[in-house]
Structure formats: structure tokens, C-alpha cells
């Protein structure tokens, strides 16, 4: 993070972005369900150069006990970055940024999970960013949904997430690190396709109301691409000829 001296061209005259993508093209995405031995459910996502592991436990007993709710289960989410995941070594203790992202991801997942079926219990979602390259919260949210499904937790739908934004006066899909630093706007979106609900929405930057509308539409298109890959990750694990 932090400013860089070198000027980069975010969009060339042929409409090609700094990493060779078209304006409506997401980065390379690979999602894998499972992988961890001790977690109840897990998922691994590579989203461009982002590498993120998610492990889920639960529903299980709540410690400390006073956090438990007799009417419903609770969801706890921790988003955490490894010290080696970013350019400059990060202190391992959770930062304010990580605590905020944990909260928005939690609130984005809550509407998808049928927590009322498991009163007095907790579902714990642990997100670990191994390598970061812009757009970690969207990649993390998408992987967390797959890990929850892998853990067999009853859900209304999976939350798929992708960012849209604005760079070089153009609305673009899936903002990368350079575009986030030097661009005009970055808007992460989390979306549940089957209920057509947006469960995560943030914006950094300036957009006109018209641009905002186009940005949401573009972002939802990205979410639908991610959603197909989430479903594929689960079918590959449970119906494919891969590991169990």
C-alpha cells in the first residue's frame, strides 16, 4: 500500500487494462472446496494473485458462554492477513482494517445462514489471507460461503462477491490492486443470486448516481460469474472424482 512514484496507464486506447483484461473481465478465479483436515468445512480461493484459506467450525458450543443466544445461533467471523501476505511485513496482531472487514463479512454472510435452527451455538468462520492483491474481502466472502456449505451448514444461498469500480473514467469489473490505488472508485459487492439480495456494499471513491447504477449492475454480473465457480467447487468435491 502507499503511493508509488511510477505512473501506470490504467486503460489504454484499445480499452485494455493494466493487467491485460477487458473492462468487464474478472481476474483468473479458482475455488476449491475442502482441503483442511481439522476444520468442519473449508475452502481455498485464488482470485488473481489473492490466495485465501477459509476454515469453518460449528455449529458448536459457545465460549465465552455469555455470548450465546437462546433464540438463535451466532456467527463469528475473523478476517486475518498473514505478515507475509502484503508488500511490507504486517504486524500479526489484528488491525482496525481487519476488524472492520471481519464485521462486514459477518453481516454479509448472516442473511444466508439459517442460524435460527441452532440456538445456543456458534458458527465460526476463520479467514486467512496468505497473499493479498486487492479485493481480498470479496474473495474472502466468496470462499467463506463455500466453506460454510462444505461444513454442511444449512443456508438459503451462497453469497458471491466481486468488486466493480471506476478507473480512467470507465466503469470496470473486479478492481485490482493498481486500479484500487490509482483509480477513482472501488465498490465491493456481495450478492445472493437466488434471492436477488445485496448483502455487502461498500464504496471508496466518487461516482455519479448514473455511474453508481452501472457499477452495481457490472458488479452483480461479476458476482454471477463467481457464483458459478462456487457451485462448481462444491460439485467437483462431492460429485466429481476428486478427493472424497
Amino acid at each position, binding site marked *: 500500500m502507499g503511493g508509488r512514484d511510477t505512473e501506470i496507464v490504467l486503460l489504454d486506447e484499445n480499452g485494455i487494462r493494466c493487467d491485460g483484461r477487458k473492462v468487464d473481465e474478472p481476474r483468473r478465479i479458482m475455488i476449491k472446496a475442502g482441503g483442511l483436515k481439522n476444520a468442519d468445512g473449508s475452502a481455498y480461493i485464488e482470485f488473481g494473485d489473492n490466495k485465501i484459506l477459509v476454515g469453518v467450525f460449528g455449529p458448536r458450543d459457545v465460549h465465552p458462554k455469555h455470548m450465546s443466544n437462546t433464540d438463535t445461533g451466532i456467527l463469528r467471523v*475473523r478476517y*486475518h492477513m498473514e*505478515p*507475509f501476505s502484503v508488500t511490507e511485513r504486517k504486524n500479526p496482531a489484528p488491525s482496525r482494517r481487519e476488524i472492520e472487514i471481519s464485521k462486514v463479512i459477518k453481516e454479509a454472510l448472516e442473511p444466508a445462514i439459517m442460524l435460527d435452527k441452532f440456538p445456543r451455538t456458534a458458527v465460526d468462520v476463520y479467514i486467512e489471507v496468505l497473499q493479498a492483491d486487492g479485493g481480498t474481502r470479496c474473495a474472502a466472502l466468496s470462499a467463506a460461503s463455500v466453506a460454510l456449505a462444505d461444513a454442511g451448514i444449512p443456508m438459503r444461498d451462497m453469497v458471491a462477491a466481486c468488486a466493480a469500480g471506476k478507473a480512467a473514467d470507465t466503469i470496470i469489473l473486479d478492481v485490482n490492486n493498481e486500479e484500487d490505488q490509482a483509480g477513482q472508485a472501488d465498490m465491493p459487492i456481495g450478492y445472493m443470486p437466488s434471492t436477488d439480495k445485496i448483502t455487502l456494499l461498500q464504496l471508496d471513491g466518487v461516482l455519479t448516481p448514473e455511474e453508481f447504477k452501472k457499477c452495481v449492475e457490472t458488479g452483480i454480473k461479476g458476482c454471477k460469474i463467481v457464483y458459478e465457480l462456487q457451485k462448481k467447487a462444491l460439485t467437483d468435491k462431492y460429485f466429481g472424482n476428486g478427493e472424497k
Partner: protein
Amino acid sequence: MATTSVIDELKKSQILELLEQGKRVDGRAFDEPRKLVIEPNAIPKANGSARVRLGDSEVICGIKIQPDRPFPDMGDKGIFICTAELLPFSHPSVETGPPGPDVIELARVVDRGIRESHMIDLSQLVIEKNKSVVGVFADNVVVDYDGNLFDTCAYAATAAILSSKTPKWEMKNDVPTLIEGVELDIPITTIPVSVTMGKIGNHIIVDPNGDEWDSMEARITITTDSNGNICALQKGGNGGFTFD
């Protein structure tokens, strides 16, 4: 470990009973370690990295190299710091928060094995004496736990250091300044190898797995360098060893 799973007495006596017959729970010989898999450069954005699996214990180590102030009493030497963290999805009993005594011991034992073997020639990592030196940070994160993290982390840290390339800095106007486009090998003098043994009853076994780890009275970690010299030791647990 911090992950003292509640292994029932039955399992413990079963392990001991088998050892009396000359067998281990997973069929290994007493002096046989588990299968070791090393994947170097698992995190391409770090200066070096390795993902290591020892049986079902898995650790990722990432190396970050950056300019730092020297320790006041060692102005002519670079800095090496090794940390360890049990990721909360590595075992159901792991709690989030600052590392406890067991994890700090783990990090320090791994640190000592590398430091005392003089694996990295720290005297070559000086930018300007007493002012600025190169700091090498080895951060180990435990992804999956199944006993013997001492050796798993030691192998991960060693492999990650061996895979590292370091940028070069020079003092300009009293500030360490990066020289673009230069990548150097880390000055390596030897390769330390750590072996951990556990004592159950009167039996000593190499590379205890998770169940064996929870049944041990004592353990010892021995690190040797390429010449066969012993360069670090750590005894742990509330039992004792005899000299023979």
C-alpha cells in the same frame, strides 16, 4: 501443545500398550518420521516461502526482508526474527488472540535452531554499521495440526529461507534506499535439521503425531547443522530423560 485435545485415557493406554509390543498407532517404526512434503515458493509475493506437510501437520512459512535498525549491541549484524502462529482453523481447540506460552516456546525453539546454527551469515546483511541492517522475518503459520509442530515449522522456515532472494539497499542521505532490479541470494553457511522425539512410558519415538503428542511425558528437540554439530536443544514436558 496449546492444542491439548481431550484425548481420553483409553487412547493413551492403547498407545502405551502398543509401544510395549514394539508398535506405534500409525504403524511406524520408533525411529521413523512421517512423510515430509516441501513445496517451495508457495507465496510468490513474499521474498521466500515454503508450504510444508509432515504427516497431517501443515505449516506455511513466508519470509519478508526489509531494512531495519540493528540491535544496539549488534550493530555489525543483520536481524533474524522467527515467529509462529496457530491459525484458528488448524485445530478446534485453538483460540484467537495473542500467542500463548506454548506457541511462543515453539517460535523460539525454531528461531534458536536457525540462529545458533548460523544458517544465515548475518554479518553480510549490514547496510551501514550501527545504523541500518537487513532484517529477515520468518513468519510460520500453522494451517493444520497433527503433532510435532517443532519440526514442521523448522523445516518450513529452513526451506523458506533457502528459497529466498533479497533485494539490495544502499545508504543515500542517511536513508536505506532500494536499488531497483537487484536480487541477491541470502548468505547461507549451513542447513540446520531439527528432530523431535517424545517419551511415552520408557519408549522414545521420533516425530510424534497428534495422539502421541498428547500422551507424552517429555519431549526433546535436537537441531544439528550440516557438519553434524549439535547447535540447539530443548527439552519439554513434565517428564525426565536419562543419559544413555
